[in-house]
Each structure stands twice: as structure tokens, then as C-alpha cells.
């Protein structure tokens, strides 16, 4: 359902054609990383740490190397030494010094499942058997999992080189020696003391969130071949082939041009397939053996060692006037980065209060290392936890003031020109349009039925990314257009970019053949992530189309013997002019293409583009729940996700993105969490016990698309994929408050936690 009444008339944009990769994916022919088979290929497997925190005293691989079929074993010592630095991965950064130690542990293992050594053998089973023969002597160290405990003066220290001079409130972090606080940041505007002085009501609450995993269905994999001439080829499942190339080049200290990364089809990423884990290890094993080495992660390793989100501990204090005007906010966010610094707390800070026009505010963020896997980006990284806390407090304020929860949000909604938390003005945004669409929706106006049912709402904000993309297009004599993409296709990239090129050229979508290619075959393209791809790739497709139009006009002018300025290209791809004899002439697109071989050759164009004119996304969700008071089980009865998408290029994929984000958010709200035992070992590293929702846990997710075009994009595109994961935790939490009168301050709200509240205290 599209809620926007008027938009430009497009021919291709807004239709729902079949995706180019669809047939191969539904018939099982699409090639994923696990499908790679190469002559002489070896199989690699990784030995992982059994402890939460330990010093590696000694590694003895001799018995494993003696096992028939084992060809090589590598450890951290086989990598070149790394200096501290910053690699820009598009959605987050990496410090090579920490990255290499995460790929294979240095002198310490910092979490249960941390990679310690890697084996290459002639088959997978022998590689696995060899792992059991590697002798590792550990000195087990005290560990810390909880983010608040990690900041205490008594906490075990993970890294000797971290210092802080700022503390979170109420935590005695030492400022004169080592600490686990890796970074503090603050943004503020206005005068919060004055703001709170104006408030008629002030509510302050603390919230915690568990660690969540992206839960992509395809585990990490990587195959590498280090050729004798020094050329390295990597086949992998990644969101960014160029990000893999940069990381591999840095970790192996090889020139970028020696490395070719071939992105295979990807079975989900959600931000988690940007850092490398296996690729550089496979390359090292290949260098040692002279043979291609294929690696993939068992599911347990995916949970243990690839990036979950940060567990968080957050404090939110908001003041409001009686009429619901929000006047001041003081927010403190503490995010557990995992074993190495670099949680998404920065984005958490910038998003926390973004759904509101709030004059006086201060937000502090702390990045804290803990003995848990190094966090990675996960769909709107950092935003769900901070906005959940804010949206919960706003809900409590609305209740206390007896104001409809959407009315209070409407009253404080930002609009174009409203400054963000850092004081910068917002471009045109659809916050108010989203709120209006919710207030007018059938769902919001329906009556709740039955006992112990409740309704909750929450808003969500995400920036949306820009960054660099490159594509090439070749126009063929039959009128077809080959479109070469550097962007990996996760959520319908091929179709969405082909549609924008078709629109730009005025030709049918079916005439465009998009292909994703390797890093040697296309110019630099940043990751498919940050909700940037349809925006940035769309800009490139648009500019490719405009350049091709220009070339075809020039060609027609040359054929007709006239100046190009007298020739026009219509939006139906008809080229019109008069020839040198003054006779009216025209070519259809297909007609001029047929003339290529005899009039100067084919038309091929490459465009690289980097635009920062992104349009932020606003989302608002409505959740209806029912609680079984006997068991604590929550049924989501009805769920509606409303979002300003700018322009929906392919509405079915846009709806699919929004539904997927909502579903992941509902999982985080009710079921998913990492569970560590008293030794700091992750115990639920499987889809059995890490409970992502299954289809029958969910109602249909209704989607309302609001289209407030982004003026910074030729077709008005904003990003879509990330904003929908932001509202669910608070929407569900607020619905539970409505249903059973209990405010929860931890997410997920599992049946265990609900019963804990409903049953008498023991």
C-alpha cells in the first residue's frame, strides 16, 4: 500500500518486474561461496578458543601436521605485523592491528570461539580431525561479559593500551590506568539545565539490551588461491568486494592490484558480511600450499566469532511540558564493542533523539571492550538500542500526561531545517508524513479485541548512506544494454539499478542486463550496506543513462550531418531532428543501435559517482500483542510498518526490506539473545537456541509506503533497508505495557521475563 497521493509519472520506476537473478535462485543454480570447486582445492578449518579470556602460552601443531592429508597450519605469527590505523569499510571502520588479531588471535584469546589456528587438509573431515591434534596451552584469565561491569575499576582488562578520562555516571572507571573504555563521545545542543527547568514532568529510566546476531542464512565462507606469480584471487560471500580487497591487501601487506575479489551470490549479510574472517586465512594457507583453499564456518562459529550487535546499558532522561512538548533530554549510552574497540555507539548517539525536534539535549556515548565477539554492523548499527530507550521513555511520558502516543510524537516531530543532535539542519524529510499515515491508518484506528491485548507504537530514524559507486554500461547493436555493477546484490540490487537505468534511457526494463562483477572488472564501489545502494547505484545508473542519451544524440547528429544541439532525445527513447537537407528524421532506440557497427562503433560508458545528498529515513511501527498470562507467551496479533522511502523503485522489494527489518526487530524484542554461561562461554550458538522468529511466530507485516522524494536524488530515492529494524523493540515493549501494565526495561522480553513480572516474588 502506498500512502502518497502524487508523484512524478514514471514508466519503469514503481513497477514490479521479475528480478534478473530470480530463476537461478529459485532453481538452486545460483552460485554461492560454498559451491566453489577448484582443481586441487584444499579445505580449511579453524581451531577456536574454549575460554572467554586467556593468554596463549604455547601452540604445538606438530601432531596435527603429521596427520596424513594435512597440508598446512597457520597462526597469527604467520601474518605480517600490523601497525594501528584505520580502514574505512563503508559501514564502520577497522584497525588493522585489531583486525588481524581477530582473524587469528595474537598473544591472547579474548572471547569464547576466538580463532587460534587454521588447518588446510585434503578434505574437510581431516581438517576437523587435525584441529583436535593441535596442542594449545592457555593461561586462563578472568573475563568480563557485562558492559557495566567492564567499566568498573575491578574489571579484568582486555587491552593494555586503552585509557579514558571520562566516566559513565555512577561507574568508578579508573582514569589513571588501563581501562576497557575505548572511546567516549558527546554531542549536545541547547541548554539542558534550562530545558529541564522548564519541564513539568521528567522521566529517567535505565535500559539494557542483549546481544543480537544478524542471523544470515548463509554462513561466512572464503576461498583463496595465491598463484605462483603472486596474484591472489578470493571468492567469498560479502557485502563489499572492494572492502574485502582492502582488508586482505592490508592484512597480507600485498599491493591492491594483486588481489582480485570475486563476490559470489550472498545469502544475507545485514552488515555482518563486511569484516573479513576467513579470506586472509585461506590466502595464507594457499600461499603455504600452492593450492586453492576453501573455508566456511559451521553455524556455531558464525554465532561465536562473527559480529553480533553490542549489548547495551543506556540511561535516558527526558523532560516535557504538560502539553507534551519535549524540552530537554539527557542520554547516556554504553555499548559493549566486544573484544576490540568499535561498537556502533556513534550512530547510536546520533540516532537516539533523531525522531524529535528537541532543543536542549546532551548525549554521551561510551565504547567498551568486553570478552565477547567483536561486534559488527547490523542493520542500522547502533540505532535500535538507543532509539528503543528513547521511544520507551516517550511512551511513559505520553501515558503520564494522558496524551495519545502518536499525538505526542506529532507534536515534537522534526521537519526540514530542524537541527539534528549535532546542530546540523535536516534536509527534506518525511517524519510528519509518516506520523500522519499512521494516525490515518486502518490499523491505528481499529479497536483492540480481547483480554491482555495491547497496542504500542514507536518511531525510528536512520541516516542512509551515500558513498562511492561505479558502473559501466555497453549498448549493444540489438538495443540491449549490458550493465556492469560493483554492488553485490542483496535485496534486489540488480533489478533496482537496471530499472533506474531503463527509466533514465526511456527503454523497457527487460532491455537492461545487469551483472555483478569482480574487483578487476569494475571501478571502486563501496559496500552494499548503509541503505546506500539503491540511492548511490541509482545516481550512477541515472548518469549512465544521461551519458548514453548524449552519445546517441551525437551519433544521430553525425549520421544526419547536423549539429548535436539540434537533435532531441525523448523520454520514450526516440531521437528526433532534421538532416542536413532539412528533412525530418527520427531513430528509435533500437534503430540507432543497429547502426552502431557502421557509424563509429558501440557505445560504452563508465560512471563513478559519490554523492552526499542522501535523504534520511523515518519509520513508524504499530504493534498489537496478546499476552498469555499463564505462560508469559506473547502473540503479535497485528503489525504495521510505515516508512518514508522517498521513491519506491521496485515496491515489492521495498516492502520486502521493510518486512524483513520488522521481523528481525520483533525477534530482538521478544526472543533473540546471546546466552553465556558462568564461564563466559556462549551456549546458544545455534538456530535452535538462538531463537529467531519462524514464519508462524509472526502475523503478516503490513507495510505502508510513504513517498516524500529525496531532493538529492534524480528519482527521489532514500535508503530503505535499515530504518525498519529500529522501531520494533520499543513498539512491542510499549504494546506489552498497554496489554499487562508492566514496563519492561530489558529486551528481549522473553516469556521467562514476563512470568518473572507476573508471578509473585519468591
Amino acid at each position: 500500500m502506498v500512502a502518497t497521493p502524487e508523484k512524478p509519472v514514471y514508466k519503469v520506476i514503481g513497477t514490479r518486474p521479475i528480478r534478473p537473478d530470480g530463476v537461478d535462485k529459485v532453481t538452486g543454480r545460483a552460485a554461492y561461496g560454498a559451491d566453489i570447486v577448484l582443481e586441487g582445492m584444499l579445505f580449511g578449518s579453524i581451531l577456536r578458543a574454549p575460554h572467554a579470556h586467556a593468554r596463549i602460552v604455547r601452540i604445538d601443531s606438530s601432531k596435527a601436521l603429521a596427520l596424513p592429508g594435512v597440508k598446512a597450519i597457520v597462526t597469527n605469527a604467520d601474518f605480517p605485523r600490523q601497525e594501528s590505523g584505520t580502514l574505512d569499510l563503508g559501514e564502520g571502520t577497522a584497525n588493522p592491528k585489531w583486525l588481524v588479531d581477530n582473524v587469528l588471535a595474537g598473544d591472547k584469546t579474548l572471547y569464547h570461539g576466538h580463532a587460534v589456528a587454521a588447518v588446510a587438509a585434503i578434505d574437510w573431515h581431516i581438517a576437523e580431525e587435525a584441529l583436535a591434534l593441535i596442542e594449545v596451552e592457555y593461561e586462563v584469565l578472568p573475563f568480563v561479559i557485562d558492559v557495566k561491569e567492564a567499566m568498573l575499576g575491578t574489571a579484568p582488562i582486555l587491552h593494555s593500551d586503552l585509557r579514558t578520562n571520562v566516566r559513565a555516571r555512577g561507574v568508578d572507571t579508573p582514569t589513571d590506568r588501563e581501562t576497557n573504555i575505548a572511546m567516549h563521545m558527546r554531542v549536545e545542543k541547547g541548554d539542558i539545565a534550562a530545558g529541564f527547568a522548564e519541564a513539568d514532568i521528567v522521566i529517567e529510566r535505565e535500559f539494557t539490551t542483549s546481544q543480537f546476531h544478524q542471523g544470515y542464512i548463509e554462513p561466512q565462507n572464503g576461498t583463496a588461491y595465491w598463484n605462483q606469480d603472486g596474484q591472489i584471487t578470493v571468492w567469498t560471500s560479502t557485502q563489499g568486494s572492494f572492502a574485502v580487497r582492502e582488508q586482505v591487501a592490508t592484512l597480507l601487506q600485498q599491493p591492491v592490484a594483486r588481489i582480485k575479489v570475486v563476490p559470489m551470490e550472498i545469502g544475507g549479510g545485514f552488515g555482518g558480511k563486511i569484516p573479513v574472517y576467513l579470506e586472509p586465512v585461506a590466502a595464507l594457507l594457499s600461499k603455504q600450499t600452492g593450492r586453492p583453499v576453501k573455508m566456511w564456518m559451521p553455524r556455531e562459529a558464525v554465532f561465536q566469532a562473527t559480529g553480533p550487535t553490542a549489548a547495551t546499558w543506556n540511561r535516558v532522561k527526558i523532560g516535557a511540558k504538560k502539553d507534551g512538548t519535549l524540552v530537554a533530554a539527557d542520554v547516556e549510552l554504553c555499548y559493549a564493542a566486544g573484544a576490540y574497540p568499535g561498537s556502533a555507539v556513534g550512530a547510536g548517539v546520533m540516532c537516539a533523539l533523531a525522531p524529535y525536534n528537541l532543543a536542549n539535549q546532551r548525549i554521551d556515548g561510551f565504547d567498551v571492550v568486553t570478552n565477547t565477539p567483536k561486534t559488527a554492523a547490523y542493520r542500522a548499527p547502533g540505532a535500535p538500542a538507543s532509539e528503543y530507550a528513547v521511544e520507551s521513555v516517550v511512551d511513559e511520558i505520553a501515558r503520564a500526561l494522558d496524551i495519545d502516543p502518536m499525538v505526542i510524537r506529532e507534536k515534537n516531530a522534526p521537519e526540514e531545517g530542524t537541527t539534528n543532535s549535532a546542530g546540523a539542519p535536516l534536509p527534506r524529510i518525511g517524519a510528519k508524513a509518516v506520523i500522519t499515515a499512521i494516525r490515518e491508518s486502518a490499523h491505528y484506528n481499529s479497536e483492540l479485541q480481547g483480554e491482555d491485548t495491547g497496542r504500542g507504537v514507536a518511531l525510528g530514524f536512520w541516516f542512509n548512506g551515500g558513498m562511492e559507486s561505479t558502473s559501466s554500461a555497453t549498448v549493444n547493436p540489438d538495443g540491449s544494454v549490458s550493465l556492469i555493477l560493483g554492488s553485490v546484490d542483496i535485496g534486489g540490487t540488480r533489478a533496482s539499478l537496471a530499472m533506474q537505468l531503463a527509466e533514465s534511457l526511456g527503454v523497457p526494463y527487460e532491455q537492461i542486463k545487469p551483472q555483478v562483477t569482480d574487483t578487476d572488472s569494475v571501478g571502486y564501489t563501496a559496500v552494499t550496506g548503509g541503505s546506500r545502494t539503491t540511492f548511490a547505484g541509482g545516481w550512477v545508473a541515472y548518469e549512465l543513462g544521461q551519458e548514453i542519451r548524449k552519445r546517441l544524440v551525437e551519433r544521430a547528429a553525425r549520421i544526419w550531418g547536423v549539429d548535436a544541439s539540434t537533435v532531441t532525445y525523448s523520454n520514450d527513447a526516440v531521437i528526433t531532428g532534421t538532416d542536413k537537407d532539412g528533412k525530418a528524421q527520427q531513430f528509435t532506440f533500437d534503430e540507432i543501435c543497429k547502426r552502431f557497427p557502421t557509424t563509429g562503433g558501440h557505445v560504452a560508458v563508465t560512471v563513478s559517482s559519490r554523492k552526499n545528498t542522501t535523504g534520511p529515513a523515518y519509520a513508524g511501527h504499530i504493534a498489537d500483542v496478546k499476552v498469555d498470562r499463564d505462560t508469559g507467551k506473547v502473540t503479535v496479533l497485528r503489525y504495521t510498518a510505515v516508512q518514508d522511502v522517498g521513491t519506491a523503485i521496485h515496491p515489492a522489494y521495498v516492502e520486502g526490506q521493510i518486512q524483513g527489518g520488522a521481523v528481525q526487530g520483533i525477534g530482538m524484542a521478544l526472543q533473540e539473545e546471546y546466552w553465556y554461561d558462568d564461564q563466559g562461554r556462549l551456549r546458544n550458538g545455534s538456530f535452535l537456541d538462538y531463537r529467531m522468529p519462524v514464519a508462524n511466530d509472526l502475523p503478516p507485516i503490513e507495510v505502508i509506503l510513504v513517498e516524500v522524494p529525496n531532493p538529492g536524488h534524480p528519482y527521489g530515492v532514500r535508503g530503505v533497508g535499515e530504518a525498519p529494524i529500529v522501531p520494533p523493540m520499543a513498539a512491542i515493549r510499549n504494546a506489552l505495557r498497554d496489554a499487562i501494565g508492566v514496563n519492561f526495561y530489558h529486551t528481549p522480553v522473553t516469556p521467562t521475563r514476563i512470568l518473572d513480572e507476573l508471578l509473585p516474588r519468591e
Partner: protein
Amino acid sequence: MQALRYARATSIDEAVRMLREGGETSRILAGGTDVIVQARERRRVIDLFVDIKHISDVMTMEYDAQRGLTVGAAVPLYQIYGDANVQRVYPALRAAAHVIGGKAIQGRASLGGNLGNASPAADSIPAMMVLDGVAQVAGPNGRREVRVDAFCTAPGRSVLQPGEFIVSLHFAQPAAHSGNAWERFIPRNEMDIAVVNAACALTIEGDVVTAARFSLGAVAATPLMVPLAAEALVGRRLTDETIAAAGAAAKETATPIDDMRGTVKQRKHLADVLVQRVIRAAVEHARAN
């Protein structure tokens, strides 16, 4: 996973001989949904799988209104829950078989395997216990019968001696006006392991309960019979109070642990809730008979 041998037995005697010759590291293979996973994860050292799926006795299911139901130990779950007699007479068994694993697993997994694996949270065991299930066991010392309610001794352990395996399971025909039911609590709606499961089989005369059996899973080291719940109900009229008393007895009997799937408090409470639910469902079934 280490390389291992596979042998196919075509008779019970042949399977017994293969297991004896294979020694301690030989293992029965039925559906393999537990044991292959255990071998892959190196949780068991296995050198030999003896496949019993080609022995007709362990692959057939028979029902007779006098003699009751006999299910071969390796009959896949989908055949059990798809059987009209099981659905009509033993709904507790049908309900448990229907929720173990997903569809693909149900094409392979079996009652014999679920019992032999002896998990405290096994879904089918409480159902088999209240239905008076008896296992036919074959081994180096011949055949014997073991009641299902006396089968499990500890997590993953049972009364089976080295070389013994389950051939079939027998369930008597319930008396007139009997009903049975099974339920579990899981946080998801499928593909999950029971936080608690519960089963009940009872017989009524009018409003009075004349016989009852209760069993609980995932609340102790083995699936438990709950005689106190039966005592609270047998000889009494069915009322909210007597049903609640049976639930309270279940809560008393349960001795669960805190783990990642649930807490002591939650599990004891759920034992109460689920026992009351299975009583009501079993009574409904009994009245329909």
C-alpha cells in the same frame, strides 16, 4: 567427523551379532537424527553404525482394538502422526510426534530413537509414559520388556545394556471413557525444545476420574511420572479445584534447573499450567469417546 563403518542388518539377530562384534563403539542407526549429529560433533566416538531400518519388525506399525498399538522402533514420526488410529486413540502420541523437529526430521526420526537418546526434554517420552508404553528390547542375552516409565536413568542414559537396542514400543488399548493429551511450552511456535512438556491419560465415569497417569518432561534429570498429581484427581470429581490440585502436585514434583531455556521458577509454574491444560484436553478426548 572420523571415518566409520556402516553395516546394514536385515534381521534382529543379525543386528545383535553386529553390535556384539562391533563392541563399545558400535551404535544403532535408525533415523540418525541424533546419533549422526553426535558423531559429527565428536560428542560420541563411533566406529560402526548398524542400520536397523531394513528389519521389518522395527519398521512396521500395527493397531488392533483389543491388543492396542505396536510401533516399530524406527517407524518415522510422520507415519505415526499421520495414522488415523493414532490420531483417534492416542492423541497424546500424535501431538508429541507432530512437533519433534521439522518436516525433514520427521521423515527420519522415530520413537525408538527419541527414547533411546533419553533426553530429559524429549517430547515423545512423557506421552509414551502416560500411555503405559512398554519397549521390546533385543540384545546379546535375548529379548526383554522394559516399561517406558522405567527406561531413562539420567540425561542421555537408560537401562539399556551394552549391545541392547529397542525393537518396538507397545501401547495398550485404553479403557472405555479414557482420554489422553500432551502439551509443551516453547517460546517459539515450532522448531524448538520444550521448556516443559506434560502428558496425561485418564479415565472418567461421569464427572469422576477413575484412573489417571501424568508425566512431565524437562523438569528433572529424566522425564518424570507424577503420581501425586494422579492422587489429587483419582476418585474425585472434576472441578477447577481438583484440577488445580493436580497442577499444584505437578509443581511440587518438578525439580528443574535454571538454564538457557528456562528458569526453576518458570518451569515449576509451567508444570502446573501444562498439567491443568492436559487434564482439560484429556477429559475432552475421553468425553468424545
